């Protein structure tokens, strides 16, 4: 997977590149808005990491220009400003996610992967969390090479949790996804599916776990094996 890093702080660029490389990305880096424009015009990138504070122009302009020219890869914005209006402007201009400096490099990697896990992007076809692999096209789940057969409802819940590894997925969102499968949804449908999923995952020795955030939803985390 190719990632373009647009960041003017040279030392940060070096660190980002080595972090991303170790996470399995091929990282190109540019330090100015102009170079970034050229790189985007010439190369094909799966994801862009864009710092908003560039020496030769606002990153937001670059972002808007890229979207206008039909670039639809996920763009993750880095910013040192965290006022709400800055975030909103970034998302309005077409950013898919933002990270406020200072951030942990591991957070950057997991956010980048989460963006790529969206349907239609590089990691969207086969989802991965710990030792669990989810083929979203063949609708099949493998743990340590063995297929785990799951009913459609549980597959749907697991898919959406895996697309957002490390982040809370609201219960209401999971319910919405199930309406297409079940006509009538019992109020405890999601907890029941999650309960079954947990049991099956742990029986198969999966190195990921589903946590409950009571009152909000669920969170899938990768556990150290």
């Amino acid at each position, binding site marked *: 997977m190719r990632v373009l890093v647009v960041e003017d702080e040279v030392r940060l660029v070096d660190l980002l590149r080595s972090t991303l490389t170790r996470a399995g990305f091929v990282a190109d880096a540019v330090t100015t808005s102009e170079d970034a424009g050229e790189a985007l015009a010439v190369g094909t990138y799966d994801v862009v990491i864009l710092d908003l504070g560039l020496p030769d122009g606002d990153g937001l302009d670059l972002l808007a220009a890229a979207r206008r020219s039909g670039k639809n890869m996920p763009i993750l914005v880095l910013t040192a400003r965290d006022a709400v209006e800055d975030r909103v402007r970034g998302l309005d201009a077409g950013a898919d996610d933002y990270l406020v400096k200072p951030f942990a490099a591991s957070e950057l990697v997991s956010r980048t992967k989460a963006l790529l896990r969206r349907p239609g992007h590089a990691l969207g076809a086969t989802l991965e969390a710990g030792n669990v692999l989810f083929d979203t096209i063949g609708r099949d789940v493998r743990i340590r090479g063995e297929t785990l057969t799951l009913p459609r409802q549980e597959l749907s819940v697991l898919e959406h949790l895996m697309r957002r590894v490390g982040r809370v997925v609201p219960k209401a969102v999971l319910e919405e996804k199930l309406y297409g499968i079940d006509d009538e949804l019992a109020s405890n449908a999601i907890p029941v599916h999650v309960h079954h999923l947990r049991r099956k995952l742990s029986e198969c020795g999966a190195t990921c776990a589903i946590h409950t955030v009571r*009152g909000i939803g669920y969170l899938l985390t990768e556990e150290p094996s």
Partner: protein
Amino acid sequence: MMRWPRSLQAQLALRLTAVLLVAAVIGVVALFHESDQTADTLRRQELLQRAEDLARRVDRAADGTVQVRFSAELEQLFNAPGASDFFVLRSERGDILATSRPDLAVATGDWPSAAAEPRYTRIKRFGPGNREYCALSLLADSPAGPVTLIVARALEADTLAHGVLRDFVRDIAWAVLLFALAILAVGIWTIRRGLDSLRAVSAQAGTIGPQTTGLRLAADGLPSELRPLVAGFNQALDRLERGLILQREFTANAAHQLRTPLAILTAQLEQLPDSPSVQLLRGDAARMNRLVEQLLRVARLDSVPPSQAAVELNALAASAVRGLAPWAIGQKRMIGLDGPDQSVWVSGTADAVEDALRNLIENAVTYSPPQSEVTVSVLAEGAISVADRGPGIAEQDRQRIFERFWRGRTAHGQGAGLGLSIVAQVAAAHGGSIEVAQTPGGGATFTLRLQKVDLDAEASPRNWIAATY
């Protein structure tokens, strides 16, 4: 002492009334004086005529005594009981030759006497009852030789001046009153008209806040006296806006300047191979990150007081809990949210309130034991509570924990002592409060109370979760 009324209208009314009263009094006094003078002149002429009349009637009798031959009119004037007039006839040497009032005649000896011309005088406090008299003395040649004739009249009987005054009060006073009312009405109307525009400007000024620093007061239609005030106010706003912009820029710049090196430091530490000292350094860097974060929040809160928009607490709490849940779960703590089914609106700035709530949750997660749940509850009365199962807060520390840079004796070196002061500052800026109590069964429960607003929002049972996703 009565306090001077501060309203311009009242002041003008009071002062105009005073001016009118003084003018009326001066007018009355002048009129009284004038009519008194007129009456005096009339009396002088009357007394002179009388004296000349009397002088013609002075005669010497056959026995050599001097006598006055009274006409019926003079008889009535001088000799009627209770007559106010009397006369004294003196010889050249001052001897009394004749008088209508022997009891008063002697005392008239020291009255100023006439020279070539008749002399008119007023004598105060004379005779029984100390009455005021006016007197005319006249030198005359009579069949009895040269004589001095004094004709005097008691003044109380003279009512000309008083009559004029009475007439004046009856005929003119109501007009003065009418004028007074008219002047007051015109004054008040003028002031009201002038102040109407001032009220409009005041309403404009009321809409200027930290979020609307670009607004200026319009001077159109204002009385010229008020224009300098409005211009001065607008200039003060210009200066304040410049100051505010500078401060915001400073905050933003400081954020940028501090965060980028911290990001580099953090990333570099993450790349070093694990060792006890690297782990310590990572902890230090994390602390530094948090401290910078909190200092920036404090700076933001200091420079921009929160606007009074409406915030929905269920959505706000859900967003804060969602944001912090991965971290809390990474710390092996659980987190849960309770809330009423209906919306809870409070007045405030979402950013600031969420900052405060995040601080409370971070504290609770830090101080609660592993595997325990931090419970965030939205309360229908417009409050959020965060309950943990940690050691709790000792009774004597429950006030001081909200002070800036205060750290408890048991602090294990994570915080800078800013978190709770941020919460207290947010609460104060929103007209709310923050309090801490014991969680039933052990631990601390912090409750952030805000000002509830009643919006006619339809009950939206948890739809907000999808909306914020």
